[in-house]
């Protein structure tokens, strides 16, 4: 195993992508994810890869679309306003059933918003984002180690299901440094039967396209795609369960909010409040099953988010509103403190025990 190194979350994403065999990066700078592009600019030319700063986010995502059609591992990264610009291209990539990685290191919005951390692109990431019926596989890292590990996993899942993946981080995750062990990835590009890489006059040519003018055909592609989504929902939902064994209350939080919440859960436990946490690791597919199971046991849920309350809707759906779901949040680049989350837990539990 490799030694641990100290890296920013953004740098860990970039290095992990290279380890995973990604040799094509297209992007456009925006705070707080620019270190990804800077890292790629330095490393890619040395290893025979391509770093290209496009003239806009829209160009960058369409370059990703192009490379994805060849079956090679490819990525782009941006932050909230830039990811909005990419949505048309992302919808095309989803419609053409191509694997690719899109990283969103979120900042406060809407509009140009601010540059401090946020989780307010949850809806955009998990409900499609662009036009049409589609999903991305969405992973939410909560440490620098996970920034690296989930970058690799994103490429693998995207390829396995031919569905674009999104790594949904935030400014804190991108900027913070923690020790990280970069795994060696045994990646060998495999022959795929759908790529557009030249036929050598030996086979019928493939077409990568998202245009289907015959409605019967378009309906068929949509239904087929949703069968894959069903398989993803069945097989790929990931979460971390923390102190849930005897919990009477359940905090639900991902990314930086889960880090803050963990402190609060421990503090509440020290006061005798039986609280635990379910941390969604995949936001789509959303880990519905553990939440539905928790709804049979606990008295209430607390959704902790850096948004006005977006994931809370999925918590309510997953638990079928069997128990009350409260919200604890800060927005606009502000981050809840462990004390704020602790107060919300205490309130939910009816005061100290």
């Amino acid at each position, binding site marked *: 195993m490799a030694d*641990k190194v*100290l890296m920013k979350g953004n740098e860990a994403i970039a290095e992990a992508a290279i380890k995973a065999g990604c040799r094509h990066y297209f992007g456009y700078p925006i*705070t*707080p994810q620019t270190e990804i592009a800077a890292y790629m600019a330095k490393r890619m030319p040395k290893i025979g890869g391509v770093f290209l700063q496009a003239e806009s986010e829209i160009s960058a995502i369409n370059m990703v679309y192009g490379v994805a059609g060849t079956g090679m591992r490819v990525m782009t990264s941006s932050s909230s306003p830039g990811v909005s610009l990419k949505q048309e291209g992302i919808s095309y990539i989803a419609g053409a059933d191509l694997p690719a990685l899109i990283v969103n290191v979120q900042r406060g919005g809407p509009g140009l918003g601010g*540059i*401090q951390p946020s989780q307010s692109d949850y809806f955009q990431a998990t409900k499609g984002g662009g036009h049409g019926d589609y999903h991305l596989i969405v992973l939410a890292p909560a440490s620098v180690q996970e920034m690296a590990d989930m970058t690799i996993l994103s490429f693998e899942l995207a390829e396995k299901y031919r569905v674009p993946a999104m790594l949904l981080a935030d*400014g*804190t995750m991108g*900027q*913070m*440094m*923690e*020790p990280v062990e970069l795994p060696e990835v045994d990646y060998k590009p495999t022959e795929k039967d759908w790529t557009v890489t030249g036929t050598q006059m030996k086979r019928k040519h493939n077409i990568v396209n998202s245009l289907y003018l015959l409605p019967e055909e378009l309906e068929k592609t949509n239904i087929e795609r949703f069968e894959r989504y069903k398989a993803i929902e069945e097989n790929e939902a990931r979460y971390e369960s923390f102190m849930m064994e005897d919990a009477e209350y359940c905090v639900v939080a991902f990314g*930086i909010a889960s*880090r*803050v*919440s*963990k*402190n609060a859960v*421990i503090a509440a436990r020290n006061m005798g409040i039986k609280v635990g946490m379910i941390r969604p690791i995949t936001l789509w597919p959303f880990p519905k099953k553990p939440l539905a199971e928790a709804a049979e046991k606990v008295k209430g849920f607390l959704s902790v988010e850096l948004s006005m309350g977006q994931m809370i809707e999925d918590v309510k759906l997953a638990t079928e509103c069997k128990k009350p779901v409260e919200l604890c949040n800060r927005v606009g680049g502000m*981050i809840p*403190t*462990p004390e704020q989350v602790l107060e919300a837990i205490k309130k939910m539990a009816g005061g100290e025990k």
Partner: protein
Amino acid sequence: MTTNTLIAGFGGQGVLFAGKFMAYKGMLEGKEISWLPSYGPEMRGGTANCSVILSDEPIGSPIVSNPDVLIAMNLPSLDKYEDLVVPGGMIFVDSTLIERKVERTDVKVFYIPTTKLAQEIGAPTLANMIMMGKFIKESGAVTHDDMEAALSKVVSAKRADMFEINLKAIDTGYNY
């Protein structure tokens, strides 16, 4: 043990660099660590700070809102963060640049004229590392062993000529 440290000063004083050194020192000792910089539309001469957590336990929130240790390298930082230090905590003050005294009476305070000392040892940019020497001695958050190993992680090969003077700066603070 967990030590939540906030290092704050002007941009250009090496606040983030000192934090990285501290983080590497902790990491090489097998501690859990996190380092989180303030980031924003900042510039040379503006303010900069970073949160460094050194712990024997896995770290939850990487954000330090109530530090056990505050290292104030300029007056605005002391003004802003003095009240946030936990009772019984420590405040390290660059007494060359900060003329006032700490008002809190429930914390341990160390006044070190790091900017002046840095000039005296011929390394005017290393007040930060002099402060690191004093921090290591007084906080007990990391040991004084093998400074070279941690330093070699943060002083790049290109700046190898700065290695010895960094060590000297740390010693100067440690022995002050």
